[in-house]
C-alpha cells in the first residue's frame, strides 16, 4: 500500500446522507477482475446522463471541484454492500480523505486498507465545512495525519481522532498480511490446539 502523505485540497461538498456503495460504484462495474481502473465509474449514475454525457448539476462535475482529493458527505457514508470496489473507485478517481459524521463499518475498514483516510467529525463541524466551501469555492484544507489536524485557509485548526494502529498502517503503508505473518507461530500454536 502507498504511504499516506499530507496534502492540501479544496473539499468536494456532496450534500447527501446514507450514500450507499451501490451509488459509489454501481454493480455493472463489479465484473472486472482487477483492482484498478474503477475511477471512471465512480458515482456513475449520478455523474452521467443516460446518453453518456456529464450531468453538470452533480457536484463532482463542477469545474471548481475537478481536482479535489477530499470528499465531504452527510451521515452514514458507504452503507450497504461490502464491495471494496467502492474505495478502489474513490482512490482511483483521486480522493484520499472522506469527511462525514459516520461511516458504515465495512466501508470504513476497506478505506484504510486502500490508503484512504475516513475522518469522523461531529454534526456542527461538518455543517461548518459545508458552509465554508459553499460560501467560498476557494476554501482549502490541509490534512496532516501525523498531527491529526485539519488546517484551513481561514486559519482554523481542527483535531480529529483516528485509531493509533490504523494511523501507523496508513503512514507507513504497511501490508496487513505481512504484519499478521509476524504472528505466524502464534497462529500455528492456536490452530494446533483448536483444530485437534
Amino acid at each position, binding site marked *: 500500500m502507498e504511504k499516506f502523505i499530507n496534502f492540501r485540497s479544496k473539499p468536494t461538498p456532496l*450534500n*447527501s*446522507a*446514507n450514500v*450507499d456503495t*451501490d*451509488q459509489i460504484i*454501481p*454493480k*455493472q462495474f*463489479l*465484473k*472486472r*477482475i*482487477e*483492482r484498478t481502473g474503477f475511477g471512471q465509474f465512480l458515482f456513475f*449514475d449520478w455523474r452521467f446522463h*443516460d446518453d453518456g454525457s456529464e450531468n453538470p448539476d452533480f457536484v463532482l462535475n463542477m469545474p471548481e471541484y475537478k481536482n479535489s482529493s477530499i470528499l465531504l458527505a*452527510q*451521515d*452514514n457514508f458507504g*452503507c*450497504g*454492500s*461490502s*464491495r*471494496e470496489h467502492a*474505495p478502489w473507485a474513490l482512490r482511483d478517481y483521486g480522493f484520499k480523505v472522506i469527511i462525514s459524521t*459516520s*461511516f*458504515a*463499518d*465495512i466501508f470504513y*475498514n*476497506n478505506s484504510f*486498507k*486502500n490508503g484512504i483516510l475516513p475522518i469522523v467529525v461531529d454534526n456542527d463541524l461538518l455543517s461548518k465545512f459545508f458552509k465554508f466551501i459553499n460560501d467560498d469555492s476557494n476554501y482549502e484544507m490541509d490534512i496532516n495525519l501525523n498531527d491529526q489536524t485539519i488546517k484551513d485557509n481561514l486559519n482554523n485548526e481542527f483535531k480529529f481522532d483516528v*485509531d*493509533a*494502529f490504523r494511523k501507523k498502517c496508513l503512514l507507513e503503508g504497511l501490508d*496487513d*498480511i505481512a504484519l*499478521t*505473518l509476524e*504472528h505466524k507461530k*502464534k*497462529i500455528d500454536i*492456536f*490452530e494446533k490446539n*483448536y483444530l485437534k
Partner: protein
Amino acid sequence: MKKTLFDKIWDKHLVHEEDGKPSLLYIDLHLIHEVTSPQAFEGLRETKREVRRPNLTFATMDHNVPTLNRNNIDDPISAQQIETLIKNCEEFGIKLFDLNSPYQGIVHVIGPEQGLTKPGMTIVCGDSHTSTHGAFGSLAFGIGTSEVEHVLATQCLWQNKPKTFEVNVSGSRQKGVTAKDIILSIIGNIGTAGATGYVIEYRGEAISTLSMEQRMTICNMSIEGGARAGMISPDEITCEYLKDKPNMNNLKEMKKEWLEFASDEGATFDKTLSLDASKMSPQVSWGTSPGMVSGVDTRVPNPNTEEDPVKKKSLEDALEYMGLKADTDIKDIKLDTVFIGSCTNSRIEDLIAASKVFKGKKVASSVNAIIVPGSQLVKYQAEKLGLDKIFKDAGCEWRESGCSMCLAMNPDKLSPGERCASTSNRNFEGRQGKGGRTHLVSPIMAAAAAINGRFVDVREYDIDLGDY
C-alpha cells in the same frame, strides 16, 4: 462472569490481542463467490502466498449467474469472472459448488444447507449479507476483498471489538406478519446507521419462536441497520434443524457444545431496544434506504413534517426517485414487477408461504412476477412439492437459483421507472436496475401484490400460513 453469545465466540477465537490494537481472530469458515474474490487470488499470486486452510474455504457462483439458460452466459465479462473463480478454486484446492452442481445456490443459502454453518463459529465472506449465518448462533460478517485475501493467506482476521446490542422482540405476531416484517420494523425504528459499531443479538419470544429459515431472514438484514453482525442464541430449534444436514458427526456431543454458546441468563449488553411484535403490521418500504419503511396500513410520509434539513432533503430525494407523492396511501401504489428471491427470502418456507397466496389465483395482467429459488436444492424441494406448478399456473416465471434481481448483476433487472415489490434486502437507487423503483416486502405481501397489481394488506387473506 456472565457472558453473551458474542463474548463467548469472540473469546474462543482470540489468537492474539494487544492493548490499543485490533485483535487477531481465527476464522472457522470462509465462503467466497465470483465477484469479490478475483483480486484476492491475484494478490496471493503476486506475493507467492498459499491458501492456509483450503478445507475451511468453500466457493459458489451466485451474483451474476443467469437464471435462464445458465450454461450460456451472454455477458463476456460475467463469463470471465465465473471462469476466473473456477480456475482459482482449482489452483488453490478449494471446493466449488459450480453451475453444474445440484447444490449450487446463493452463498448464504447453501452454507446452512450443506451443514457448513454451525453454532459458535466465526464465519466470513466478501458479502455484507454474511450476517445471515448468525441465525445459528455464529459470529458471521461481511468483509472486503483485501480481507478475503488476508483470510485466505492466514485463516485469521484483525478486528476491533464491536459493542453488543440487544434487540428484544416480545409478543406474538399477527397472522400475515412475518420475520421480514419484524426486521423491517426494527430497521425502521433504529435507522440505517442505528447499529453501526455493534453486533446485534435478537432475543425475546417473537424471535425464539421463529423457525431457522425465519431467523435467517432476520439476521440477514442486520447490515441494513448498520450492524457488524446479527445473531441469535442457539437452542433446540437450531439443533433440530441441523441434525439432518450433511457433515454432522457426533451430533450428541456437538449439540451439548452448541447450546453452551447461548447467552448466559443475566448477561449484559452495551445497548438494548425492546419492541412488541403484536403491534407490527406487514411492512412496505417506500423510499431509497431500508429504514424508509412503514406499515401497509399507512401513507407515504410528507417531507414538510420533517424539521431536520438533511433528513428533509433525503425524504424529498427519495420520493422524487421513487415517483411517489407525499401522503399517498401505500395500498394505492401500483406495481409492474414482483420478485420473490434473494438471500433474505428464497428458502423453501418462503416459497411454500408464497404458493399458498398464489394457489388458484392469477397474477394481474399488468404485472410480471418472477420467482428465483435460493439454491438448486430449494428448487428441487419446491418442484417435489409441486410449487413450481402453482406458480406457473398463476402466471409467474420459475427460474434457476442465484442472486438475480436482488442486485441485477445478471440479465434480471428493472427498466428505468419500473416499480417492483421485492423480497430482497436493499431498495437503494438503481439497485435492481438503473432508474428501477424497489419496495421491500415479505414473500406473502409480494405474492398478494402480484395478484392485485398493487399493495394489499395480506392480513385480510383467509389462508392458513401455519407458523410462517
